[in-house]
């Protein structure tokens, strides 16, 4: 490090690299450590205006989280942003920079001497707007589907997945006409020519010669410019004014740090069918844009990576920016380790140590995994000292075929990463990119873009997954839920209450509550009710019942703690009214699905959760959903007295209701006969009243009809006269398929010995009147059957094997075969069924006389 070339020192933030000098082993920069931002938590407050980017994201996310009760600032589309930034923060920022410029005291004459430092960049023009997309030879035969790339040469510059880039903030290009590659000297306002040094405070560049007194060489230690030093001492400083008529050109770095530009990390790149290039990225944020604002420990070049996706697929107003065209050029965001090692990456070097959670405004140190990857990338950089070399090492023409590209990439990584440990895929919590390549089965294009027939549309809309446009038949219940919730939260006191909802599966319990919550959300947006938070928990998706505390606490505060700690905090919040975080305690609506799963042995979890609402100032409303009607009665009296008062029953749907549900889904699709729907709904209503079942039957019926229609039309392509609608017969067939028990068919298809075995079982049952028999008795009966009817008795061991086979598919219930003679056997189906199945067997007509 000591003999770092001058060029390298020039653009280096001297604060950090000076640290490793003292200690031979690497230590991460201490500034951020002293005040660990990961603990530094600023909860979302109503007052604080969220920063632009986050506000936009929050408004998108607010469906499931009611965190921004106030309406997000309306300035979403990039186009509406005027030339000069409007939000207070950035005006302040730009003012700051302008004041700096104003206060220039004419200081030094210019010393244009040494030749310009060569910035080794191929790309000359800053913005690639409107440029023709130059790619590979491949471009001639345009593939009809979306193609994913690992690297793309765009406008003469190569972008690889995982690269960090500057992204234009506005669509209509730059506020400054040119994007200088080289920063201008703060004193002489000329770029290049001679060594420049960077102030560690204001990041301004200065020619060594322009300084007062001029420096001979770049100092080893931290260096701050005279202006900053003077400012620190409390003096009024006048920064040099630029010569009249010359506007100070700002570099991209400056623009980024004054939030006129954005930086992002590319996660995947693809080409759309229309030959435009898109990418998906993680945004970076400057400290000013976080809810906490710039902290004293933040370095000048520090950025935060957000957990915020810029995703073109989500209907995001930002997604326009995600065309490759809005990418300006590379920047280099580095982990502390690399940043310390950084040499001459130029002006576009940034430092990133933490991830910023835009939802919770919390910080998290970037995980090891990412470091691992970045290390690999940085190795690339280090191996070949300059950018240019690095680029030339990669073969620029090779990416004609995407697959080869990937293999290439893999080969490269293999030898390099001996140290990288195997990481479980789930350590990233499903945030995985490049799924386009994994071995799943791709859905063929012709299937995806196939014009749907009426039947297919019917099938589509009958899917359980499709959310119906309207929810018929549960108006009364929804009304009740909605008045319950509103009554609870609109009270000034916000008295906590409990509601217990029960009903058999498939009667729309969860769906109704969620629909009510959606309508409440829209009311919240229109401002007619007070803000609240909504937490939804499914008892079956918790690992243990105690984990519910953790989930609730995480939903309320964004922190993950152990359940004991969470219980402690929640107790404080609900019983003592202590605030969680900084914000005011909003009423909390807690929806617990499958409540019966929370019943532990001493029922403490349920007790705690149902006790909180009764406390004053708890502002907690609990809605529990379960299948059993008498759950409160089964619980301890102190719990049932807290829960059992307010109940709501979702009865099984009647056939009219089922019919209405199906018809409302099929509205506008002429595929079903009316009687067919009625038949299906009557059948289901008679059995369970489960709407899911009814929908499934109809869907299956539609499939059967579809199959029938296709079969008809394929042999004779002429106008086939077959009915295209789903009729009674199709529904009948679907019901048959679904409700018919397969055991009779299995018995009929079993082997000869199996049949004799079962007949023996029935015979024994009639003879003794006992359901249970032993293998010894049965073997005796079977051997009698065989000898008296001219069959060969296969031996006890074979018979045992036959019995075990029947036991495996549960036609009989039996003990393990090792019990042999003592094995206990019992029929699993009514003996009448077995007798019915065996009666008219052609193979063994004599069986009938034993049944």
């Amino acid at each position, binding site marked *: 490090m000591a003999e770092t070339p001058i060029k390298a020192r020039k653009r280096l933030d001297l604060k950090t690299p000076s640290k490793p000098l003292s200690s031979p082993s690497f230590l991460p920069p201490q500034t951020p450590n002293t005040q660990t931002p990961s603990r530094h938590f600023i909860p979302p407050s109503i007052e604080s205006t969220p920063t632009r980017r986050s506000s936009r994201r929050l408004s998108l996310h607010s469906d499931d989280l009611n965190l921004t009760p106030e309406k997000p600032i309306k300035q979403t589309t990039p186009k509406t942003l005027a030339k000069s930034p409007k939000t207070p923060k950035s005006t302040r920022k730009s003012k700051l920079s302008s004041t700096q410029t104003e206060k220039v005291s004419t200081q030094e004459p210019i010393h244009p001497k040494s030749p310009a430092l060569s910035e080794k960049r191929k790309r000359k023009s800053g913005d690639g707007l409107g440029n023709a997309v130059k790619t590979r030879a491949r471009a001639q035969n345009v593939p009809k589907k979306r193609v994913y790339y690992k690297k793309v040469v765009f406008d003469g510059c190569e972008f690889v997945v995982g690269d960090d880039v500057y992204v234009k903030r506005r669509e209509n290009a730059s506020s400054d006409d040119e994007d200088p590659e080289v920063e201008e000297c703060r004193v002489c306002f000329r770029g290049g020519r001679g060594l420049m040094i960077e102030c560690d405070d204001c990041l301004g560049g200065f020619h060594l010669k322009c300084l007062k007194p001029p420096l001979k060489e770049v100092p080893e230690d931290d260096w701050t410019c005279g202006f900053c030093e003077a400012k620190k001492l409390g003096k009024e400083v006048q920064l040099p004014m630029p010569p009249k008529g010359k506007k100070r050109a700002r570099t991209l770095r400056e623009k980024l740090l004054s939030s006129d530009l954005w930086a992002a990390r590319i996660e995947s790149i693809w080409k759309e069918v229309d030959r435009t290039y898109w990418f998906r990225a993680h945004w970076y944020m400057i400290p000013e844009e976080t809810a906490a604002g710039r902290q004293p420990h933040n370095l000048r070049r520090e950025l935060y990576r957000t957990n915020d996706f810029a995703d073109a697929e989500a209907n995001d107003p930002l997604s326009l920016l995600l065309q490759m065209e809005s990418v300006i050029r590379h920047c280099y965001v580095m982990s502390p380790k690399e940043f310390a090692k950084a040499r001459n990456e130029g002006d576009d070097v940034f430092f990133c140590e933490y991830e910023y959670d835009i939802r919770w405004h919390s910080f998290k140190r970037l995980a090891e995994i990412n470091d691992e990857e970045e290390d690999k990338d940085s190795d690339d950089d280090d191996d070949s000292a300059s950018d240019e070399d690095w680029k030339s090492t990669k073969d620029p023409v090779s990416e004609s075929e995407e697959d080869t590209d990937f293999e290439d990439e893999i080969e490269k990584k293999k030898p390099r990463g001996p140290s990288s440990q195997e990481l479980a895929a789930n350590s990233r919590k499903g945030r*995985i990119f490049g799924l386009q390549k994994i071995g799943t089965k791709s859905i063929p294009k012709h299937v995806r873009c196939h014009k749907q027939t009426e039947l297919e549309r019917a099938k589509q809309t009958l899917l359980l997954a499709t959310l119906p446009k309207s929810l018929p038949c549960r108006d009364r219940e929804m009304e009740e839920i909605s008045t319950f919730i509103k009554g609870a939260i609109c009270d000034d006191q916000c008295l906590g209450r409990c509601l217990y909802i029960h009903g058999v599966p498939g009667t729309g319990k969860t769906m109704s509550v969620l629909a009510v919550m959606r309508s409440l959300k829209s009311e919240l947006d229109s401002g007619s009710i007070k803000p609240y938070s909504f937490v939804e928990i499914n008892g079956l998706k918790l690992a243990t019942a105690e984990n519910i505390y953790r989930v609730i606490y995480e939903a309320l505060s964004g922190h993950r703690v152990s359940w004991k700690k969470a219980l402690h905090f929640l107790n404080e919040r609900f019983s003592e009214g202590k605030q969680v975080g900084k914000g005011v305690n909003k009423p909390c609506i807690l929806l617990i699905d499958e409540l019966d799963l929370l019943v532990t042995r001493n029922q403490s979890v349920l007790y705690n959760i149902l006790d909180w609402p009764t406390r004053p100032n708890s502002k907690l409303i609990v809605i529990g959903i379960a299948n059993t009607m008498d759950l409160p009665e089964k619980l301890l009296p102190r719990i049932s007295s807290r829960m059992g008062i307010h109940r709501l029953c979702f009865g099984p749907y009647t056939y009219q209701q089922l019919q209405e549900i199906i018809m409302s889904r099929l509205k506008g699709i002429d595929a079903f006969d009316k009687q067919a729907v009625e038949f299906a709904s009557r059948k289901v209503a008679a059995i369970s009243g489960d709407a899911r*079942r009814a929908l499934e039957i109809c869907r299956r019926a539609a499939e059967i009809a579809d199959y029938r229609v296709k079969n008809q039309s394929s042999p004779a392509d002429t106008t086939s006269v077959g009915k295209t609608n789903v009729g009674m017969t199709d529904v009948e067939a679907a019901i048959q398929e679904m409700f018919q028990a*397969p055991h009779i068919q299995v018995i009929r298809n079993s082997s000869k010995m199996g049949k004799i075995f079962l007949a023996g079982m029935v015979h024994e049952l009639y003879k003794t009147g006992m359901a249970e028999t032993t293998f010894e008795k049965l073997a005796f009966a079977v051997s009698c059957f065989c000898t008296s009817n001219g069959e060969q008795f296969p031996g*006890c061991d074979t018979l045992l094997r036959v019995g075990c086979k029947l036991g495996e598919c*549960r036609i009989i219930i039996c003990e393990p075969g090792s019990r042999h003679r003592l094995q206990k056997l019992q029929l699993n189906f009514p003996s009448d069924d077995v007798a019915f199945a065996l009666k008219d067997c052609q193979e063994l007509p004599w069986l009938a006389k034993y049944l």
Partner: protein
Amino acid sequence: MASFDDNTQFVIGMLRECGLAHKTIIIVLDEFHRFAQGKQRLLYSLLDAMQSVTSQAVVIGISCRLDADQLLEKRVRSRLSHRKLLFCPPSKEELDRLLECLLSLPVSSSLPQSYIVEFNKELRKILADKKFKDTIDTLLSSDSTVDQILRFLFLSVSSMDLKTGILSVENFMTAVVRMNRQPKLECTKDCSILELYILVCMKRLEMREQVSYNFNSIMKEYKAIHDSFQTPDYYARNVCIRAFEHLLQCELISFMDNRRNNQSIEFRPVKLLISPYELHQGLKLNQSCPTILQKLMDQIGKRS
């Protein structure tokens, strides 16, 4: 080691990502009934995830149990789409086609043409043979699954005469004998005289309606037989214990229950695991069996 929560989140995230990338995932749960144990969290989460538009996935459960869907909890069953496919063993006609298809050599193989022709000709003769058909019938009378047939064919082909390289009916007949072995009977055939004594003693005890007996009572019976018939074979007690242990290992006899594990084996109640019919057969087949035992068994047979 990720927790259940993390893994669920991961799976759901993956499903969403794959759905966005227009990829389908097919999840096959073999031995489906095994997943229906406990709280069925996995099935619930998985089937619930199937019901969102973004996940383009299919769950296929495979089970040998007919009542697999009855094992599911109500709320899980409601989320199942109740499509059932039953796989039945092949019928007679299908079987004939299957056999011919499996056994005949393909014409376009690398083997010499004349050999293929001869092999297939011989095979057709075998398939039409009455004896072969009977063999197949005996095989399938106990178990008519494809799995069983494949094992049988493998056994038959591996016993093929390598000199001629042509299958014969005998190959199939030996194979069927090997398939339908009677392990318990064969075990008694190989028993030592002392072991046979013990088995017969146990049988006699059972005939006397003695519900529970242990090694000591067997030894008493053994001594009684020795005293009344003056048999030449009388062994010391510790030798008898060895024989007794061997019988336990062969699973010709077993303990009544596993409860009193810590007791020494002499005192634990035992049971005969072989039927009198099989024992009788075994004694007949055993060459070294003393006549007195056969006589005793005949008595028992007559009495019952």
